[in-house]
């Protein structure tokens, strides 16, 4: 069963500090949104793929990688893929920018 995707406006570019994550809550879902130093914005489910879970939004961002704050797993913000030697992936959601307005499709 696939649910229809919906597009939401989550703010303007200025709402997202460079390299510092921000939590966006949509219904019962929590997103971690990051703006990388090249200006791109990424949205991921705010849950570490580590078996013990934990938030992602508070991690350190380097390039388009995120280091999760609890277990230091390295995650590719573009694909959600966890980098070796660890394994796993995070769900990512497409983000688009029109002017300063940031939207995400869920």
């Amino acid at each position, binding site marked *: 069963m696939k649910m229809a995707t919906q597009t939401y406006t989550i703010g303007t570019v200025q709402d997202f500090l460079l390299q510092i994550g921000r*939590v966006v809550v949509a219904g019962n879902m929590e997103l971690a949104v990051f703006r990388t130093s090249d200006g791109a914005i990424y949205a991921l489910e705010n849950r570490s793929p580590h*078996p013990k879970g934990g938030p992602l939004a508070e991690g350190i961002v380097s*390039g388009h990688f995120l280091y999760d704050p*609890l277990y230091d797993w390295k995650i590719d913000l573009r694909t959600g893929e966890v980098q070796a030697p660890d394994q796993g992936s995070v769900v990512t959601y497409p983000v688009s920018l029109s002017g300063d307005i940031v939207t995400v499709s869920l």
Partner: protein
Amino acid sequence: MTAKRENLVLVGNGMAGIGTIEQILKLGGAYDITVFGSEPHPNYNRIMLSYVLEGSKTLNDIILNDWNWYEDNNITLHTGTTVTRIDEESKQVVADNGLSVPYDKVIIATGSNSFILPVPGSDKEGVVGFRDISDCDAMLAAAKQYSKAAVIGGGLLGLEAAKGLVNLGMDVTVVHLMEDLMERQLDRNASSMLQAELERQGVKFAMGKQTVELTGEQRVSGLRFSDDSTLAADFVVMAVGIKPNVTLAKESGISVKRGIVVDDYLQTSMQNVYSIGECAEHRGVCYGLVAPLFEQGMVLAKHLCGSETKPYEGSIVSTKLKISGVDVFSAGEFLDSPEHTVISSKDEWKRTYKKILLKNNVIVGAVLFGDVTESANLQKLVKQGAVMTDEIYTEVMGTGCCGGGAKKGASVETMADEEIVCGCNGVTKKAIVDAVTEHGFTTVDEIKACTGATRSCGGCKPVVEQILEFVLGDSFQQAAKQGICGCTTLSRDEIVAEITAKGLKTTKEVMNVLGWKQEEGCSKCRPAINYYLGMINPDTHQDEKESRFVNERMGANIQKDGTYTVIPRMYGGVTTPEDLKKIADVSLKYDVKVVKVTGGQRLDLIGVKKEDLPKVWEELDMPSGYGYAKSLRTVKTCVGSQFCRFGTQDSMGMGALMERKYERLDFPAKFKMAVNGCPRNCAESCTKDIGIVGNDGGWEVFIGGNGGIKPRIADAFCKVKTDEELIEVCSAVMQYYRETGNYLERTSEWVERMGLEQIQTVILNNEENRKELAARIDFALTQVTDPWKKILNDNSTRTALFEETRL
């Protein structure tokens, strides 16, 4: 011209028996070999059945020796055939299908059977053990049809079965007789952390329950316990233990106690008949894990091939649970008693626990939970009966930051060639060394593909890495000249020197100019560089929030549920009724979960929501207590001369003064102090970074103490006469630490690395130097601001950092 070879018959086609045969083949043993196995399969890795159940492996993946292997090695294999008797007189082995085979030597390796509780109903449909492929198949089938399972037994096997069934979508309750899970391998601390973790992963528990009956008609429908409570279940796995399979030995008149009795060369009471593995009892012990059986196999194989061998003298076992995300390990002795010295550390946020037991300073056991990177190392130390030293301590209890594990190779150097590194797959040190030297392998993955080491539970990986490093020597070092992290080969000192020499200003600049491999660094180097930059240029450096760990960025401690802890500053541990009232009001208003007194005499307001943080700070209107920062945390004080009848110095006054003076400044790591009014030392100076003790004529200063993860008693540094001297000395020590400490290095490590005398020389023997250090810290102190105030006055950061967007 081949002479007639002797007949060797192996009864039991399992891990122990075939392991021994493999050794014999390697040693070129001159035997015609016949193998009997009750199961219809070739030899497989029984411990990986847990993975088959969990769904991450298939049966094919766990076959160790396929049909071809038997053929290639001229081994006659009878599967699906159970041996019923060994006839000593006619020297024949007799099987249930009438087959009889003459022997010169026999190895009995019949393993164990699942122990099925002798309670009414245990023969009902839907009740299985967890032992072999057919049990595994039964579980996979049941999960498709039924929904509620009970696993009786909270040991290794039971927990792996339970997790497997949860993964298959069943609602699973583990029923355990004791109050603690895996009580034979873990202590109470580790066991309760384990239970919490498994509950998080969806396993339910019924602890302290004795099953007295399985209810139901033909098929099981539930369990009844001794307290008359019940539990519904349409599928039951019994994992309460194993029973050595001694039927054959008994029938043949071989001496049996719990297991088949063997001597140090695995010889049974019958001439030419040996026994090995789970069915054997050696010096009163029956083992239920694989590592011992490989050790036994090695001795037996050599013995049968006429090579000289040391006798088998028993094994020290260790345990590792194969459930992803649940890392537990134990080796040797694990329950502490008065005769043990216990080293332990528990971290409830990261959910890790580490304990090492010493007896007369010899390492006799260890328990790890959550982080098992040191498991292989500890297992080895326990096995060797190593004496605890400072080096070992640092190695196994270390802070785990980068650059720490530089000289690890040494212990593998002394390891014997035959010593088993990978217990799961019986791989010796020599096999790994050969793989490296003969095939030129340089990675763990290559070694895994070639030897099988690390293929199962993975517990041996650290040792395999160490062997690799040891054998490759310089070329390995070359490949991995260790910088402060993987992004650079530069050391801390080199980086600091470059920053100063080239006048670098931001982490970005540092990484660009110094050729970082990853353009924007990583979570290890960015915070470190940010600190070094601030230390070098306190007035001009723009602190980078994005290069700070979450706690420092938020000005509060994140807790495991995502809420935060706020600690208002209370200088010297002294507060006022007005402040207490305010704290109480704010705590009530923002629904703080717990108000707790900290180890450093402050108040923790635990459980504040992220978006409430700024409001809480605003309404408290107190300075930040820095309970989260790599900075001066608290100055703990005793009552001192203001009130105490023993006090000779005003410890409260001096403590508050020091805390006001040094607060907010960044250090390489957190920094704690204490001030005492007299040598009774009620505020416990000996475990502080700087501890101060008042005496009749002045003060005594201690440095490098720590009560945390790496306990250390502080060293006596100097005595001073006046308050001014005291402050100057403390300033100089702090600044010297700020300037030479590695990021994340506590003073306890710093003092040991630099040497106490070196620090004394720099600060005590050179007045000019001391004054310069003190002046530099004073300058840096003019630049600090309170982070809470700062955020309150900066609306956009406040929103962006603390408020979540709700759609």
